[in-house]
């Protein structure tokens, strides 16, 4: 049940980086890339240099030669995303009240990803991460630039290195080499400062589940340095926002999987971090709660926060995330705004294509003649 590393190379579809001839590479968007995804330009470093014959593309070179040119514009104050559909109230960089609790009047939470004219500063810079577990290479030079105020989805097949990447980002796993920068703070050089900026929801790690829900939230808040009054007020609003009212007095060990996710997410939000790192936040969460969580996160992003999440649900990522990175076998195959990455296909189609195409369901003919 080892959870942190994902070293299962047997599951990796091998031809991932060299798509099959039968599944031709989607039309490269070389021209649009420069204009349409400015902030994610360096993230696109991992993207194979556009218009080449797919089969000839060397496997790892794109990921290993990041063009960090347009990557980081000088630190600018957090600018609200210039999305027309959203209210553009100016936001300050002063510590914010917990957004989860804020009643909001905005009725259109769904962010329509649109090309921003000005490159936004990087909220989270993942640069050239390498990590191996024994013989298994988990990360082979992962670089992702997450612009501020973005809702960033990381997708990939099982064992691709999503959890490993997010663990390194949140300070839970030391990389072999590479750098993670959160709002200009190096996670592995100044961990204490960086950790204050990040809220983390790890996947498949235990909670202190002998505590009641109320105790766990109070514990998380106090460890984050909040005073008792603030913690209690925030716990109250988080409980309402996540619909956990009836669960506060019960031990977390007795929660269902979805409830455990929700309370862990609430604990990750409690110190109003500037960046949220969420590993599979919607796994085993019921649809109503998932919609609820999505809305909370969208409001958080709308107020200038940054969300990085991993998920298997392509529909959800396509619907919710304005940016996406496709990680396969420890390498970022494509990244940028969701619209650009998926092009004229659905994200799922594009993902399956990048991840090595669908395995042809041959040799299963016996399955169609039932034994009894």
């Amino acid at each position: 049940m080892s959870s942190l590393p994902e070293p299962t190379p047997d599951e990796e579809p091998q031809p991932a980086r060299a798509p099959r001839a039968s599944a031709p590479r989607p039309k490269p968007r070389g021209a649009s890339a420069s204009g349409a995804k400015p902030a994610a330009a360096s993230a696109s470093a991992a993207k194979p240099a556009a218009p080449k014959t797919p089969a000839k593309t060397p496997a790892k070179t794109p990921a290993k030669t990041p063009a960090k040119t347009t990557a980081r514009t000088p630190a600018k104050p957090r600018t609200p995303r210039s999305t027309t559909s959203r209210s553009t109230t100016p936001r300050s960089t002063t510590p914010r009240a917990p957004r989860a609790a804020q009643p909001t009047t905005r009725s259109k939470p769904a962010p329509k990803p649109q090309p921003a004219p000005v490159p936004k500063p990087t909220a989270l810079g993942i640069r050239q991460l390498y990590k191996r577990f024994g013989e298994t290479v988990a990360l082979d030079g992962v670089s992702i630039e997450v612009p501020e105020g973005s809702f960033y989805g990381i997708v990939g097949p099982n064992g691709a290195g999503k959890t490993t990447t997010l663990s390194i980002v949140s300070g839970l796993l030391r990389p072999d080499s590479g750098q993670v920068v959160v709002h200009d703070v190096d996670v592995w050089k100044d961990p204490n400062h960086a950790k204050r900026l990040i809220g983390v929801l790890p996947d498949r790690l235990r909670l202190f589940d002998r505590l009641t829900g109320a105790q766990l939230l109070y514990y998380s808040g106090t460890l984050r340095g909040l005073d008792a009054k603030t913690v209690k007020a925030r716990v109250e609003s988080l409980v309402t926002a996540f619909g956990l009212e009836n669960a506060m007095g019960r031990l977390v060990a007795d929660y269902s999987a979805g409830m455990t996710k929700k309370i862990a997410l609430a604990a990750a939000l409690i110190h109003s971090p500037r960046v949220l790192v969420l590993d599979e936040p919607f796994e085993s969460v019921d649809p109503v709660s998932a919609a609820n969580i999505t809305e909370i996160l969208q409001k958080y992003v709308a107020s200038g926060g940054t969300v990085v999440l991993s998920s298997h649900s392509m529909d959800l990522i396509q619907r919710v995330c304005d940016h996406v990175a496709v990680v396969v076998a420890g390498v970022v195959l494509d990244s940028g705004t969701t619209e650009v990455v998926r092009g004229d296909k659905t994200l799922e189609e594009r993902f399956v294509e990048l991840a090595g195409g669908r395995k042809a369901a041959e040799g299963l003919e016996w399955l169609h003649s039932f034994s009894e």
Partner: protein
Amino acid sequence: MAAQLLGVTPTGAQRGARRAGAAVADAFADVPRFLWLKLALLGGSFRRSVWQIVGLSIASLYGLGIMVALVGGLIAARFVPQTEIVRDVVVLVGAVAVVGFLLLPLVFGVDDTLDPRKFALFGIPASRLSVGLVAGSLVSVPPAVLAVCAFATVITWAHGFWTVVIALIAAAIAIVTCALAGRVSTAIAGFLLDTRRSRELTGVIGVVLVLAISPLVIYFSQIDWGRQGTGVLTAWADVLRFTPVGAAWAAPADAVLGHAWLAALELAIALATVVLLWLVWRALVDVMLVTPGRTGDTKVYAGLGWFGRVPAQAWSVIAARSLTYWARDSRYWVSIIVIPIIPALVLGSMSVVHAIPGQYLALLPLPIMALFLGWGVHNDVAYDGTAIWLHVVSGTTGLADRVGRLVPVLFLGVPLIVIGTIVSVAFYGDARAALPLIGVSVCELFVGLGLSSVTSALFPYPVPKPGDSPFAQPQNVGAVSALVQGFSIAIIIVLSAPAIVFGVLSVFASPGWAWASLWCGVLVGAAAVVAGVVGGGAIFNRRGPQMLEAAVKAA
């Protein structure tokens, strides 16, 4: 046979017998598959880490050693003229083995590789599944040792054709009894005690068993075996011979002794036991196949508990969390309960051999308890499992973590030393002994706490996971755990040596040493706890990811 009882025509009887035979054959049809499955699982455990292979090899060698010794003894017993004594010993040891198969699964949690529910989706007929699982459960070190020893008793009782036949039957019955007993109690442990709360109950059952066994141990240790040994042996064996746990072992012996009727009675009891266990097992399999996991009632707690009573600082909420865990987590209960048991056992054995004159014994329990109390938290981080990520991710300082974890121990330790000193002095009869007692106990407790602060951050080793039985054997135990345990206790004793030596001198040489013992103990203890907390805090700060990695590996 069954057909004849039903009174059908001869041809029908034949057909019925054939049908019954076919049914039995069918029930055994999957046995080879289950044996292979269990062998493959056993082989798989050899394909893990090196340390696990070492551990498993040591366990196998240990089992092999016991087996060789027992088989040798059983063969030698063939030539002992006092058949009654041999019988009584075999009955006693055999009965203990059966009871072990029955109780150990309840205490040590569940070997769930052969849980019937795991096979529910394969659509195996329940009769085949029941037989196969029992057969599969025999492929493991303890049942293998048991089986070989059981068949070795055939040699012990080889005094003629019929005794050999009876011994063979009895040995087979004994093996099946143990296998069935193990299955039934494992099923009960895994099924009836399935909810989280009742699973923790198994920890309580274990503690109660330890408590129940310790008077027995003391009872047996106080018997003057040279003089009354055989009498006690016979008294116990005479009862056990006619109980389900001892009957199978006694039957061939009584046959050898010529007590044909007794042997028949014992065989009947043994056979009835097997039938009864089989029926219970079959019923359990039938029920388990159609019953997924249960969910228990959950208790609702109001308010924040300890968290509401402490200041909102990192160290104090960690202390509140630790206190809550000491109260709610059965793994901590075990260490609380074991601490008074250790000195009781030490005193019991010492009073038996008369190693120390009576009054001085009163001075021993408190230092022993203080030693184990301080040492008890030397692996505290591992008890959190992977939940330690929260401390890592929130940038909790090592100092706060270290201090917070020591609070529950101080909650227990300070009253223990105060009350313990008063009680010990009262029994000892000289108030001057209070100073060295306090000195030594404080020293051991605080050195233990300081050392624990370092070792729990530096060398976390696998422990039972939260929610498991506290006696469950964690996976991936390496030699590291034994090394850490041994070295940490040795270091506590070495650092406490001055206080101990001065204390001993004050009792046996001159009372003037008493103050030296007190000051020495308090100063060394204070220095050790400060150094340990600061040093351990620094290590904690540096090793956050490594500690989490260790926890993930242990999970």
